[in-house]
């Protein structure tokens, strides 16, 4: 099983670049984060899919914290709504990780491919 403690060495520049691109896209399209991070990690760093997905979540923890602090002073955040959708999502993420561990890595990549094609269609067709 792949493990984050015995990874191939990843240089700092592709990681920094992936971060910048994901932030750029988040600001420009409202879609950044994992949708950009995971495919670029697979493409540029050769991290195994499971590690890429888990590491993407850790990055999102940082970016969502920073983003929330930035908006916290304004009245754009509906805290009640954030809790009402965020709390069930915590249950969802635990379920998702449970399934992820049982799914072969190649099937995980297929599933992710289907997901981003769906998002891509949504953007192209302006739905």
């Amino acid at each position, binding site marked *: 099983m792949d493990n984050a403690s015995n990874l191939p060495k990843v240089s700092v520049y592709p990681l920094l670049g*992936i971060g910048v691109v994901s*932030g750029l896209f988040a600001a420009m399209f409202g879609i950044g984060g994992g949708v950009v991070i995971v495919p670029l990690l697979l493409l540029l760093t050769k991290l195994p899919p499971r590690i890429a997905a888990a590491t993407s979540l850790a990055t999102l923890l*940082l970016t*969502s914290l920073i983003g929330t602090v930035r908006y916290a002073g304004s009245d754009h955040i509906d805290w009640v709504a954030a809790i009402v959708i965020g709390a*069930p999502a915590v249950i969802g993420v635990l*379920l998702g990780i*449970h399934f992820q561990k049982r799914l072969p890595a190649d099937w995980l990549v297929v599933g992710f491919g289907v997901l981003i094609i769906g998002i*891509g269609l949504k953007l*192209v067709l*302006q739905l």
Partner: protein
Amino acid sequence: MDLTLLTICLAIGCGIAAGLLAGLFGVGGGVIFVPTLVLVFAFTQLDAQATSLAAIIPVAAVGAWRQTSDENVYWRGALIMGIGAAVGVLFGAEVATRLPDELLSQVFGAVLILSGGEMIVSASRRIKAKRLG
């Protein structure tokens, strides 16, 4: 948000779906949160994005914690990407106001479709090769 039985049920459904995607694929859930808040709860795009960011915090925190206990998180990479993303957001906000975003998001969408297709094709080849091998 008005809390009625219907909105709470919808919010729970959308939350669980977003969390599942987060756990399975490492996306935050904004892909589901933002359109749901806009279309179902009549949020403005900006309010939806800001609220979605706040809702992602517990998801990413619990997910990263759970994955860390299985040693799946490459924290050095996450920190470096996080720093890069903070820089990217600042630049993106500048650029976003100066570009025709409809065409741009269609181009971005096309790139996603192509990369999704490439992922499926290459992963299917590996699956097939393993079956034969």
